């Protein structure tokens, strides 16, 4: 699988606090090309949450460069970086973070709310995204009426709706039983096969090993970056 880099990290360092300074990331560098499906795996405390936040532009690195879709995020102000996030990054959360008072369709359409897309277009694309995750029949439901697996499908549809450069999935199966988790993993693989670039952050080596590429993180450093021989 080849293509231009949608995500590049160069010597990314993140240090929290001042006295004493606590390094969370120490010189992390890798790049992800369009269409890849990558697992970032590591035990708790390895820095993978910090890495997720930095890739997602929710946090700025102390040092180093993060390039998303060719744009250096560190050079942007809040307004521009927010727009970059709105258009080029889709988040999938372990706890789903769905709005309970809104319908499934509205939740998915809200994935485009801050991207400057008119309402009619948002809903049209939400319907498409729901179709892709197999939830067309649930569009008018409230999330509270859905099972955990269905809720995570809504979350994935919301990340997908803007066709972002990268989808960041943070322990997407962490709140689900293993059978449901497996079906979510299957969905992510299908979406990847259809062209989506997905970064999956997990502590579960079993899940990571079944993905084409694994970046192992330990104590804020990349300890291995392996591509399965069978990949693509």
């Amino acid at each position, binding site marked *: 699988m080849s293509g231009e880099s949608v995500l590049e990290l160069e010597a990314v360092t993140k240090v929290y606090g001042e006295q004493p300074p606590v390094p969370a990331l120490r010189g992390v560098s890798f790049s992800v090309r369009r269409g890849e499906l990558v697992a970032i795996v590591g035990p708790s405390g390895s820095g993978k949450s910090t890495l997720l*936040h930095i890739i*997602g532009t*929710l*946090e700025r690195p102390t040092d180093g460069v993060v390039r998303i*879709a060719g*744009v250096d995020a560190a050079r942007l102000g*809040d*307004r*521009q970086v*927010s*727009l*970059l*996030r*709105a*258009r*080029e*990054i889709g*988040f999938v*959360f372990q*706890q789903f*973070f769905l*709005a*309970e*008072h809104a319908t499934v369709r509205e939740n998915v359409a*809200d*994935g485009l*709310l*801050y*991207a*400057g897309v*008119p*309402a009619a277009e948002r809903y049209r694309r939400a319907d498409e995204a729901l179709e892709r995750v197999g939830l067309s029949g649930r569009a008018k439901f409230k999330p509270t009426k859905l099972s955990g697996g269905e809720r995570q499908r809504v979350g994935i549809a*919301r990340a997908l709706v803007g066709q972002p450069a990268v989808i960041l999935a943070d322990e997407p199966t962490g709140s689900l039983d293993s059978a449901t988790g497996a079906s979510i993993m299957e969905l992510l693989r299908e979406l990847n096969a259809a062209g989506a670039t997905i970064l999956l952050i997990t502590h579960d080596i079993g899940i990571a090993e079944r993905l084409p590429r694994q970046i192992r993180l330990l104590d804020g450093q990349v300890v291995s970056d392996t591509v399965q021989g069978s990949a693509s």
Partner: protein
Amino acid sequence: MSARSGRLRPEDGLRVASVGLRSRPLRAALSALGIAIGTAAIVGVLGLSASSQAGLIAEINQLGTNMLTVEAGQSFSGGAAQLPLEAPARITLLDNVEHVADTALMKDEKVYRNSMIPAAKTRGIEVRATSLNLLSVLGTGMARGAWLNEGTAGEPVAVLGSVAARQLGIDRLFPDQRIWLGGQWFNVAGILDPSPLAPDVDASALVGYPAAETYLGYVSLAGGEEKAGPPTTIYVRTAIGHEAAVQSLLARTANPEAPYEVNVSQPSDVLTARAAAAGAFNSLFLGLGVVALIVGAVGVANIMIISVLERRSEIGLRRALGATKGQIRTQFLAESILLAVLGGVAGVVAGAAATAVYAGSKGWSVVIPVEALAGGIASALLIGALAGLVPAVRASRMPPTVALRTV
């Protein structure tokens, strides 16, 4: 990246700002209640005073502003002056004078419910002789019974003013209803409606001039003849629009020899002043309304701060979806304003309804000053903005990573 911004459209902004209200309607309603009560109190007070003012002005216009009164003032030496006996007849000859009636206060005569009442208990009721056309000049009528006529004016028959009747404890008439007036029994022929233009008449027992002469000895000499009188108050109805011209001539006409001993006044002036006073706000209730508004503002601020803490994950999610700090700030500020304005609108409606019901029960026309309506909404808007400022800034400064970590 394209140059198009991620700015929300107004309808999206409104939907986002109302998320909190829609997801917790009871809480929103309760926190808006304080502002609603405050606004209702203020609008109600302003509306009621405006309506009562309108009611008084309508009453004044109905009574007519073209009535003037002529009274005996003080003499040069400081004693009570007298009007000449023939003053009413002279005034009748003036241009633009339409009707003239007169009454004579008999200071020494008292009136009691019966002959057993101690003399000191006069209850402030006065005895007056009256000309027979008094009612048409005052524009008042009979509450009960009949007015004096040519026959009864010469008999021991009295008509009671509305206040006098109440003071004497007479609220209905029996055929033999009598009062003890000037040391003798007088029959009560009727009770008057209130006459706001002549409060003196309200508090009087009225008898005819002939009766005053015959039974109470109220006479004065005119050209060597004894005649009932003199009058102490003359009521003059002028042609409408000529009040000032007539007023300027009345003193000289009533008493050409000593015009300075005559007081001329326009009773509707007093009522107009009273209407203006009624229009002044009831500052106590206005103050209470302001206090309720402040308490309401604190309530809204409190709810907004709690709401920001509770909705950390929503804030984090919105940031992850690409909301800027400014958009988060605007969302919470707009929510606070929306909450307060909803309270303000409810308060304005409630205050207006209270005004309408009360004014309706009093028979006033309903007047709600536009300033009260606009001021009510505007102050709610301002309160919402002030109350929402701190919570909104807090929400916008919350780091998205912290916001997402909670739950």
